[in-house]
């Protein structure tokens, strides 16, 4: 069997075994659904409650993508400012680090006091997604081959030309690496903030459904919502990987290695 097909079949096989084992544990121990529902029941719940759950999935996805878009604009924008003025980088970077290292779950309750719940969730997701994009793009903009920089200077390139034709393309792989991390983090940020908002928030995202189902001891729906959260994460990761592949497949080692 070719190795490429094996790469898909092996993880899928392991996943199928895990689901099968889960089903067996539930059946053999005759566990009631409020302790641990079987995979079949979770799937049934997912289909039965699809209107509510998929609506919530859309809410969560929208917040995540909006936060990610803001993080891209803010992160790349600030990285460009950093790259053009070192003094700004020196003064602002520590603050960005403080935002990054403070756990978002600790910031979320504060945000919920000052902001509308919807906005607070968005801001939390933005804060966690912002840093990897800022840090990676800054690194990329500063990772230009010094000889190429000399060549641009020798050809009389303006700083705008140097930015557009040299520094931005050089930073692209770094930025895309940061984007992939930020995509996952934005989802985590959105979920964490929604959970912190809890019943106080009038939000209706997936995390809210999980909390709500927990209060009602509707464990199958909890699992169904959890499944959708994972799916949303996988979807975001795949989409960003595709973007990365499309942008880098012709020239960057990271994507060329994949095809061999």
């Amino acid at each position: 069997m070719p190795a490429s097909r094996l790469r898909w079949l092996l993880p899928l096989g392991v996943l199928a075994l895990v689901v099968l084992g889960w089903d067996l544990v539930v059946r053999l121990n005759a566990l009631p659904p409020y302790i641990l529902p079987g995979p079949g029941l979770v799937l049934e719940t997912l289909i039965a409650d699809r209107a509510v759950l998929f609506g919530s999935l859309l809410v969560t996805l929208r917040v995540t993508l909006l936060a990610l878009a803001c993080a891209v604009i803010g992160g790349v924008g600030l990285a460009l400012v950093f790259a053009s003025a070192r003094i700004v980088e020196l003064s602002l970077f520590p603050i960005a680090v403080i935002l990054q290292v403070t756990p978002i779950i600790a910031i979320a309750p504060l945000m919920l006091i000052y902001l509308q719940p919807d906005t607070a969730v968005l801001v939390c997701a933005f804060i966690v997604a912002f840093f990897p994009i800022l840090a990676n793009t800054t690194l990329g903009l500063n990772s230009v081959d010094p000889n190429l920089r000399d060549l641009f200077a020798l050809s009389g390139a303006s700083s705008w030309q140097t930015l557009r034709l040299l520094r931005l393309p050089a930073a692209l792989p770094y930025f895309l690496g940061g984007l992939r991390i930020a995509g996952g983090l934005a989802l985590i940020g959105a979920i964490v903030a929604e959970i912190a908002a809890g019943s106080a928030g009038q939000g209706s995202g997936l995390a809210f459904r999980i909390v709500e189902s927990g209060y009602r001891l509707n464990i199958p729906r909890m699992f169904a919502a959890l499944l959708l959260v994972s799916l949303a994460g996988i979807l975001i990761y795949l989409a960003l990987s595709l973007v990365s592949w499309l942008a880098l497949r012709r020239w960057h080692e990271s994507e060329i290695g994949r095809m061999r």
Partner: protein
Amino acid sequence: MSPAPLLRFEGVGKTFPNGVTALAGLDMEIRAGEFVSLLGPSGCGKSTALRLIAGLAEPTAGRLAWAPGTDARHSIGFVFQEPTLMPWANVFANVHLPLRLAGQSRRAAEPAIMEALELVGLAAFRDAYPRELSGGMKMRVSIARALVTRPRLLLMDEPFAALDEITRFKLNDDLLALWRRLGCTIVFVTHSVFESVFLSGRVLVFHPRPGSIAAELAIDPGQPRDEAFRTSPEYAALARRASQALASAMREAPEAALAGPGAA
């Protein structure tokens, strides 16, 4: 009777902010249309001299006097030790770069780009990406990029040092053919005695710390540079003279004598 000087170094010195003196009291002349090599060990300041010519650095003492009427900075091509290609751009776009920075569109620049690629024998690879090329081919692209602006002065900083010997011989032959065809001036930095003797009409031997010229070796420009020359006794004799000049330059340098040639 030597041709008119294109550029003269007059007591040029270069001390870096960290206190290292790369060049001191350097007097030399680059003549229009010649192929001159700067020969010396690594770290003897010959690359610094090249960067001064290119305007990538400014001397801290002395001055560079250009021949009157030379629009110096705009007719210089530079070939680095590495190919220094943009990995995200194909061969065509890489060679286009100097013209693009000067404001020439792709279409307007196409004839010049294709001509430069023909000169280095890579016209068929215009759409290839650098990673798809061998080391020698990448260096050819780099040379094409330096030639695309039709420079009067081509500066080459140990361009073939990282290549295998077979590829280096081939590129040496091709470079000489290019030089004869284009009639530009070439300043070629190398640490290879054999390369400098094979290629140039004049070899300037540098001594290190601080860098300046220890000896000058003139080679008959009428001498054909071909396979026969590469194995001839004349070539061997010239190479021996250059080696001896280099060895005595190394002995003269006080610090190099302490550190030994291996550390230079």
